[in-house]
């Protein structure tokens, strides 16, 4: 919004720049940015994707209140976009970092969007007319997206980018439909990456998380069974803005699945093969998925395989109990050893350790609660910032209990899932803490 706004006077004192950069525009980065902006400090928010919102924007409803993720998030993204003190650099990545607290120079790569965002009005005509349809990554590959796209109709900023690996013009030197249709002539196929330099006094790193790919699990079919999906994919299926406009229809044939198996701890708490840690959110979001499914498919049966139920947040245990007692969700304490296709069925072999019996379910869809892992380039970013990561690639804090948002480098802070798995409430609290640390730093100078 306010990209070219002049830096206001008074945000530097004795050479100590009282302006912050937040890397990552998910709920943690947004929360920290708004806090700092409201405290009167200028903020540069850098986001890799074309618009802010992060993972939370992919979610349908959130636990334990079951309110719509987009309905709670969109006011925040809009506030961020319109905030007079927040400058958005989306579709951008941090390239180089130099300096020290109070005087960092950050070189940011602004990736070529092939759209001149100054000219673009966000009318959406180009996306409507673009003839190239491809699996849409934001929908976990399920829906179709155009080669020129925004992540959502409420994208902030509401400016599209072209993905050259899907665009007919880039692939075959034909088409140019978007260029012809654009009323403001904003399409620019010749656009190159460019670099901008930002001088800031503090940096908050809130680069978020990824999920361990379902392709990692041979025992669950190496991702080759289309109706074995991960938790984020289920979020998209259940989301009104998703590929099925919120109807639970399985990817292979669009059928409404009547027997659905959820598998918690897929890749978590598995020290021998995958991640030894608990991903913290899966117990809750699986319960949420199961309940949301039951709200939509009344005659559907849900099976949840779990190791333990870890529901330690406010209102969380009640949420789980309600699902078990009132919604007929079947919890089976045990692991699933194998999933395979036999004819049209998905066969799930597991065990119920409470009865000691083997369990075989002919499922119509399976949802894997795959482990939370760091973004794959978190380590590279940490190197640029001079901060450290743990053995998994999560950013490390100075002290696990007493200094949870500071890093070894003064002026650089961490927030959200980049530090380790967190639910939304914890990620926001972490971000609020990081923002207040920055305010403390600025207040001291």
């Amino acid at each position, binding site marked *: 919004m306010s990209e070219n706004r002049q830096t206001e006077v008074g945000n530097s004192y004795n050479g100590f720049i009282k302006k912050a950069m937040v890397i990552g525009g998910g709920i943690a980065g947004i929360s920290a940015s708004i806090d700092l902006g409201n405290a009167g400090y200028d903020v540069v928010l850098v986001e890799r994707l074309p618009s802010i919102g992060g993972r939370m924007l992919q979610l349908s409803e959130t636990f334990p209140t079951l309110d719509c993720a987009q309905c709670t998030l969109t006011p925040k993204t809009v506030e961020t976009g319109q905030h007079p003190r927040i400058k958005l650099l989306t579709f951008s990545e941090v390239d180089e970092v130099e300096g020290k607290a109070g005087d960092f120079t950050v070189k940011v790569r602004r990736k070529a969007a092939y759209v001149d965002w100054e000219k673009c009005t966000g009318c959406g005509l180009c996306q409507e007319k673009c003839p190239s349809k491809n699996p849409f990554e934001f929908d976990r590959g399920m829906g179709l997206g155009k080669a020129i796209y925004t992540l959502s109709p409420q994208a902030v900023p509401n400016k599209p980018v072209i993905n050259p690996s899907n665009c007919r013009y880039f692939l075959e030197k034909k088409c140019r439909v978007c260029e012809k249709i654009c009323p403001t002539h904003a399409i620019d196929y010749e656009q190159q990456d460019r670099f901008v330099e930002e001088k800031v006094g503090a940096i908050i790193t809130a680069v978020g998380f990824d999920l361990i790919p379902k392709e990692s699990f*041979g*025992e669950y079919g*190496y991702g080759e069974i289309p109706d074995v999906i991960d938790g984020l994919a289920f979020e998209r299926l259940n989301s009104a803005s998703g590929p099925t406009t919120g109807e639970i229809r399985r990817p292979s044939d669009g059928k409404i699945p009547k027997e659905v198996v959820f598998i918690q701890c897929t890749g978590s708490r598995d020290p021998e093969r995958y991640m030894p840690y608990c991903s913290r959110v899966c117990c809750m979001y699986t319960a949420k998925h199961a309940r949301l499914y039951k709200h939509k498919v009344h005659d559907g049966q849900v099976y949840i395989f779990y190791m333990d139920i870890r529901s330690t947040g406010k209102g969380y245990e009640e949420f789980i109990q309600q699902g078990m007692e009132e919604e007929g969700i079947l919890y089976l304490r045990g692991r699933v050893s*194998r999933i*395979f*296709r*036999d004819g049209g069925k998905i*066969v799930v072999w597991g065990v119920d350790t409470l009865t000691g019996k083997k369990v075989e379910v002919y499922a119509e869809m399976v949802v894997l609660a795959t482990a939370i892992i760091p973004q794959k380039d978190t380590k590279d970013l940490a190197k640029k910032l001079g901060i450290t990561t743990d053995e998994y690639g999560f950013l490390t804090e100075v002290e696990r209990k007493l200094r949870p948002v500071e890093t070894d480098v003064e002026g650089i802070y961490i927030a959200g899932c980049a530090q380790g798995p967190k639910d939304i409430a914890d990620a926001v609290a972490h971000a609020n803490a990081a923002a207040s640390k920055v305010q403390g730093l600025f207040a001291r100078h």
Partner: protein
Amino acid sequence: MDYLYFPGCTLYTKAKNFDQTARNCSLLLGFELKELPNWTCCGATFPLSTDNLMALLPPSRILGKARERGATLTTLCAICFNVIKRTNRLIQGDEEKRDKINNFIEMNYQGDLRILHYLEILKEEIGFSQLREKVKKPLVGIKAAAYYGCMLIRPYEEMEFDDKEKPTLFEDFLEALGAKPIDFPFKIECCGSFQSVGSPEVATECAYQILGSAIKHGAEVVVSTCPMCTFNIDHKQSDIKQKYLDFKTIPVLYFTQLLGIAMGFDYQTLGFEQNFVDPIPLLKEKGLL
């Protein structure tokens, strides 16, 4: 090229057909299986407890003796292969246990043998494309289900044979012979193993599931690499028939028997009399006899 060969007990008794066909085929493929003299039982199971060194002595002795004669040791039986390969790996990587074992068996074996399964020789030393060229009678039209069982691939970190959930080596072999490999979900499931002694009904059920799945997916013959599996899924077919009256039997062959047919051996040398279900009608139907 010669390979030092450890047959194992079963290949001298119940699985003579496995041993003989492997030896005969190797000569036509340009290598010889040189039997390790004075060999003993492999131990039959790799010990499940971590401090059971006694159980490691038989395979260690075999390995020590083999090393005196060569750098590679080959086996056919999937269980022998499993025990020997895992013991070899343990001796290689665990200095303390290596010293204890060597002290006891009065040898000085360092774990530096290369352990190869016969299928690995075919894949890595001969090459499946070469094998394809050497085939005299391609098994065209035979729908064969490659049954791996567990011992060849698991634990996969130690066996390093093929992918643990979706192995393809065996299918590639069948394809090289000209057969049409059938994929079926039970190809890596347990045959019931020694349950056939204590709880035979468990093993029968396993065999029924495996064969039933193979048949359902269109298999005309099931191919095995393991005398234990073969005992359970082939010879158990009479028990299956008693329990499931509509069950139709299916020939279960060792992969070397199929190789023998493809290499043009007279069927009378292939030891079909040891197989529970006679494959000759099928082979005749396919024009291979």
